[in-house]
């Protein structure tokens, strides 16, 4: 049997802390379907008579049973729901590998200009020259920051960008008569999306072990390279928060073997404006605009994952792409000799392009470099302040934008990484990323980003130290019971997964009453 994730403790804790009941500031909000009914509406629309002649007999006969709310009811329902969320705006959100930085509101304002938000993807290109110029300008920034030859803007998210980048590699190799290359090398510390993407495209995934210092074993890469290897997928800085010191050597070895270097750019925030991935020898890299360039995470998306491409891969970019024509910018929407095709219906995440470019222009080249340096400074500051109370698995290099600890400092306390993280909730912080990367036992991955002030970092470190001391002092209950101050105590994930309830159903007694 394989265990492809470390067994995390589950279950809901056993403490007898007082129940958190609903109050004005921490509401217990009923479901929309328990508040509204099918008659109420918050949108005034005229009732029009229609004939059914042009509906082909396909008019709706079944009921929708959709609850509606008037505007004041809706406003209150969603405002009350919102209060149950932690957010960047309300507190530090040090989720490693997620880059939860400040989201400037100018970005939002610009994205809502009608000239960007109220234009259709299939309008004549003569009527959207400003939009195409914006895409061109964003492309220029992305290519300049990475020193690459081309960029495909359209992917909808990081994983989608990865897919596109690997499709481009496959297309390039097919075109060069190299279709026999069926292996992709993926370091053990990689994001789960990397092996998933490679496998999706039919590649066999060969894991590359990490060295004791948390970096990729160059020798192991060289030994694994062969004429059957299509590419390596490497995250740099890696998921342990370390810059791969021999990345150039790896790139050279990969290229010498006729393979491509796909770089996972999820951690680009550590190096933007400071190191250009193109100088390291990458062939393709996706950039998460929702991480590095502050387009909001929005509770899980939408993201945007443009992919920069080297000279060798540029001809294999997907459609649509921009081209300068006689009458301004043109949008090339169909294959003209390229082999990849189309990965989404339209031009990608325009709303995110506007936000990202706004962010870039606000920072300038100098501000982006300063942001990366501050992100690295903050992570090293946390690492320095906590290294005596916590256990640092890799200490040979300075960390980049995130600080990684393992759970050996909790040995013998009966407190797990999960418990520790949940206790952090009671102190007003969002937990760090837990149990990732997998190469470290009970990992705690902390990414403060550049947005946190020294004052906030100090308060965070004080709380972390206090929690560590309390765990070592034997106050296990504080941790296993946590959180007790959140809108909910620990939730029963086993119950949710064993008998999934994925939608609201009208309670049976209400149905009977209606009969």
């Amino acid at each position, binding site marked *: *049997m*394989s*265990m492809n*994730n470390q*067994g*995390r403790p589950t279950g809901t804790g056993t403490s007898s802390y007082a129940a958190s009941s609903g109050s004005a500031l921490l509401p217990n909000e009923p479901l929309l379907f328990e508040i509204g009914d099918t008659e109420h509406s918050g949108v005034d629309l005229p009732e029009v008579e229609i004939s059914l002649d042009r509906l082909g007999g396909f008019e709706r006969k079944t009921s929708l049973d959709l609850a509606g709310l008037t505007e004041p009811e809706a406003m209150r329902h969603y405002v009350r729901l919102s209060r149950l969320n932690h957010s960047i705006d309300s507190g530090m959100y040090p989720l490693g590998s997620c880059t939860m930085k400040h989201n400037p509101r100018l970005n939002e304002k610009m994205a809502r200009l009608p000239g960007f938000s109220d234009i259709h993807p299939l309008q004549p290109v003569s009527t959207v020259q400003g939009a195409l110029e914006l895409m061109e300008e964003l492309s220029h920034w992305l290519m300049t920051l990475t020193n690459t030859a081309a960029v495909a803007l359209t992917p909808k998210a990081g994983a989608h960008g990865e897919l596109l980048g690997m499709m481009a590699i496959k297309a390039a190799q097919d075109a060069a008569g190299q279709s026999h290359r069926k292996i992709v090398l993926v370091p053990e510390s990689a994001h789960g999306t990397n092996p998933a993407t490679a496998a999706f495209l039919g590649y066999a995934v060969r894991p590359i072990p990490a060295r004791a210092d948390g970096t990729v074993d160059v020798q192991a890469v060289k030994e694994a390279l062969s004429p059957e290897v299509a590419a390596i997928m490497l995250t740099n800085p890696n998921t342990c928060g370390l810059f791969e010191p021999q990345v150039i050597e790896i790139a050279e070895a990969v290229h010498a073997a006729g393979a491509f270097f796909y770089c996972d750019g999820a951690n680009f925030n550590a190096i933007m404006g400071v190191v250009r991935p193109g100088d390291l020898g990458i062939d393709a890299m996706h950039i998460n605009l929702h991480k590095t360039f502050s387009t909001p995470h929005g509770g899980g998306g939408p993201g945007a994952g443009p992919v920069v491409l080297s000279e060798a891969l540029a001809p294999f970019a997907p459609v649509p792409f921009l081209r300068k024509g006689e009458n301004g910018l043109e949008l090339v929407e169909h294959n003209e000799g390229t082999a990849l095709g189309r990965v989404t219906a339209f031009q990608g995440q325009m709303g995110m392009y506007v936000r990202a470019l706004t962010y870039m222009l606000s920072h300038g080249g100098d501000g982006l470099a300063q942001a990366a340096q501050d992100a690295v400074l903050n992570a090293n500051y946390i690492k320095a302040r906590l290294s005596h109370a916590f256990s640092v698995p890799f200490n040979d290099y300075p960390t980049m934008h995130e600080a990684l600890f393992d759970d050996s400092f909790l040995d013998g306390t009966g407190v797990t990484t999960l418990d520790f993280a949940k206790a952090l909730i009671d102190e007003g912080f969002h937990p760090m990323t837990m149990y990732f990367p997998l190469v470290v036992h009970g990992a705690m991955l902390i990414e403060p980003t550049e947005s946190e002030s020294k004052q906030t970092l100090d308060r965070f470190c004080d709380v972390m130290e206090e929690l560590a001391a309390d765990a070592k002092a034997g106050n296990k209950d504080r941790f296993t019971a946590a959180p007790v101050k959140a809108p909910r105590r620990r939730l029963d*994930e086993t119950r949710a997964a*064993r008998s999934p309830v994925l939608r609201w159903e009208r309670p049976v007694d209400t149905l009977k009453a209606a009969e």
Partner: protein
Amino acid sequence: MTTKFTPDHEYLRVEGSIGTVGITPYAQEALGDIVFVELPEVGKVLKKGDEAAVVESVKAASEIYAPVSGTVTEVNTTLSGEPGLINSDPEAGGWIYKIEIADAGEIDGLLDSDAYAQLTL
């Protein structure tokens, strides 16, 4: 009747030519609450090391490999409704599938209970 183990934490309980496969108490403890089991089809022919089933906990999904080559003769359909049996009773009620062993010689290559106990110390 003998019970043998794999380094991947499957057990194989051999009775005549039939082996019963499940995961060890150590493995169920490490995985946490099992929420779903994907069973093999009866009649499926497996080679030693093939993926035979998948067990999912809340946080992990793990493949169950065939400890020996053979043909699936029976699966524990009770697990579809009560996957938690793997947690509460991994070695009896939580068995996963039975296999007609093709090559009894392969059994000798598996770990005995002492060797497996050493592995999970």
